[in-house]
């Protein structure tokens, strides 16, 4: 018993002594080599279909930072849910606080929402997980669960009404009696030899991550919009998830910025 108390005390004093800092992550949305512009810009997928995007948004969660020696810092889960929307500039830069001081060489996260939180009680669904609030268009009520990645738009090739296409990808494996597909995917992004230094709260580094929305359509499975104009719960959703798990890539590390507000301004936020 005494031993346990001793260990406990140690852990507490260690945490106290350890300095922490913050980092920002900026998501830069693109289609291949071009910036993503909603509604106005025409793009082409690998299949040759022309399309425009009207909506693009996704959840990331369960963020981890990986050190040079391979060890990992796991963010407290409650603080690691983010809903990134192309239509909301502010949502594209997120800030992670209370990161232990140190050097990191890669980041990993889950694309979507983990199965535990998909099944959790209503009391644990605050902020971007609020099914009547921020998450209201990222939640399936009749088949209870979050939508992980959502892209909508139009394409001449689409066979659906008004030439629209809709890719709503979710499904976390199901609970109890209900077993479903599991479209949870992870992304690990290496900083390409650069080092992310977390020092304190005054010096806030910014990682820029490029999110290539065309990867929903191009990859192991090149999606023909004519054949699959709307994909939601069906088996084809797994192919799209398999495609988009590669949509994130490292695009730079800014070391010069000194505080969060300036960072955001530098990136044209606010």
């Amino acid at each position, binding site marked *: 018993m005494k031993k346990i108390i001793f260990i406990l005390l140690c852990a507490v004093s260690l945490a106290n002594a350890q300095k922490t800092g913050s980092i920002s992550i900026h998501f830069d949305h693109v289609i291949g080599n071009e910036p993503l512009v909603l509604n106005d810009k025409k793009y082409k997928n690998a299949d040759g279909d022309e399309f425009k995007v009207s909506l693009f948004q996704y959840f990331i969660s369960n963020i981890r930072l990986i050190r040079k020696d391979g060890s990992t810092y796991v963010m407290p889960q409650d603080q690691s849910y983010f809903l990134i929307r192309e239509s909301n500039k502010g949502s594209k830069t997120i800030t992670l606080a209370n990161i232990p001081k140190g050097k990191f060489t890669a980041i990993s996260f889950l694309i979507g929402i983990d199965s535990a939180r998909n099944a959790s009680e*209503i009391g644990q669904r*605050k902020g971007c997980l609020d099914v009547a609030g921020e998450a209201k268009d990222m939640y399936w009520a009749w088949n209870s669960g979050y939508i992980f990645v959502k892209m909508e738009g139009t394409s001449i090739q689409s066979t659906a009404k008004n030439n629209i296409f809709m890719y709503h990808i979710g499904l976390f494996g199901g609970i109890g009696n209900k077993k479903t597909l599991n479209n949870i995917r992870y992304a690990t992004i290496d900083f390409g030899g650069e080092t992310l230094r977390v020092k304190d709260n005054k010096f806030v580094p910014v990682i820029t991550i490029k999110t290539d929305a065309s990867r929903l359509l191009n990859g192991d499975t090149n999606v023909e919009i004519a054949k699959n104009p709307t994909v939601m719960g069906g088996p084809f959703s797994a192919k799209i998830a398999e495609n988009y798990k590669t949509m994130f890539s490292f695009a730079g590390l800014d070391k010069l910025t000194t505080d969060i507000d300036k960072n955001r301004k530098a990136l044209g936020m606010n």
Partner: protein
Amino acid sequence: MRKETKIFLLLSGVAFLSFKSITGPELFSVPTNFPRPTYHFDSNPLSRAGVELGKTLFYDSIISSDNTVSCGSCHQQSAGFTQHGHVLSHGVNDQLTKRNSMPLFNLAWSGSFGWDGGVHDLDFFAVSPITNPVEMNESLANVLEKLRSSPQYPALFKSAFGTEEINTERFLKALSQFMLTMVSANSRYDHYMRYEGIEFTKTELEGMELFKKKCASCHSGELFTDFSFRNNGLTHLTENDFGQFEVNQNENDKFKFKVPSLRNLSYTAPYMHDGRFTTLEEVLEHYDSKVEKTDFLDKALNKDGRLGIALTPDEKQKIMVFLKTLDDEDFVKNPIFSEGSLLNPILAKNINDDLMNFKITDKTQRELLNQCVESYLKIKSAIQANKSKVAGNEAKKLMKVLAKMNIQEVSQKEFFRKYQDKLFFDAEHIFEGEQSTDHQLDHFKDLSDHLYILIASFKAYEQTLYFNQCQESAMDWLSDIPTDLFVVKNCKEIQTKILTK
């Protein structure tokens, strides 16, 4: 060794205590013949004020887009909290749902909800009817906004949760709290099982034996379901509804639906997910001789080379007698679950807000509208005299008169059409409900309101009319005499508005 037992005792003591303390026996208690409930009471402990709030929300149509439909419209107590006499339920703008409404009781024991089991936690169920365009067609965010600006709700949330804040969690938890109190465990069968001085007759006992042999593999235990999803051989199922497949896309689960409880069947007709059977005779006939052999059919219904469940007429009779012992009249009549028991009655929308200042100039149209009033008064007397057939016939006449009506003035046309359609719909249901005065009454208040709005807006009455409203019994009606009591019970106060020529 001794230490271990102590710790174990301590732990189980804590678990037991926490379970007891969170669910005061007055609000929710586990009937002694039931298993332990599965609902997570520890994260949503029931309180008197929470249940009261939930009940208010359940009966308030403020949670639908056009403020006409409440949870209670499709889940009516006298029908075991399903919808009276409706094969498919109707929501806002009288659109039909894809499925038969489900009875609501003993929900604390269920681990998945809906005919396809798409929702795993009772707390989340309400999001589905509220946001479904066919049911309530409202966004939950908007509902919360309406509640926040209502004069009534902030105080109710405060007594239930400590502060006036209205958020998703509190809203959903309150609805669950009320629904969890709906425990049905006082049927003859329950009294018999709990040795509460009830003996089964010989036929009832034989029926129970047969039921155990033939039905209880799926409709098992005290809740009369094993909570699984199966295909019971209903014929002609179409892609319109794939059942469990719709939520998990597993080919093996096509056309599988939840095995429903068999309690309260006398009140919950029609039966099955699509409401295809209106009587238990049809259900038993189905199991005996109509089961369809498909790839999806449950193995239990295709055993030893025989399709379905062999049942002689005598056996069918006995099973029906047994099923009757599962009716819990106490439950469907218990005032504690009714809208009438609310401590603060729901603030009714003022119907006069819908009135317009119009005039019918066309003489024939004016006469037709007055014929509608005559028909209406005849329907009313018939319902009052419990003559559902006569009321049905009169409703048919009303439909014919309505069909002839047609207003030309551009500014008034759309308004008239809207209420003409509504009246037609109400009359149609009174006509179709000619078997049951109860079902007719369900539509009578709407019929009265819609006719009142038309008559008062167009000022088309040739004689003096009275529009009566009783808050307690939630009934409105028109009359041609001043103090008309109609069928209202326990009415403390009737408000009457006079329409004079």
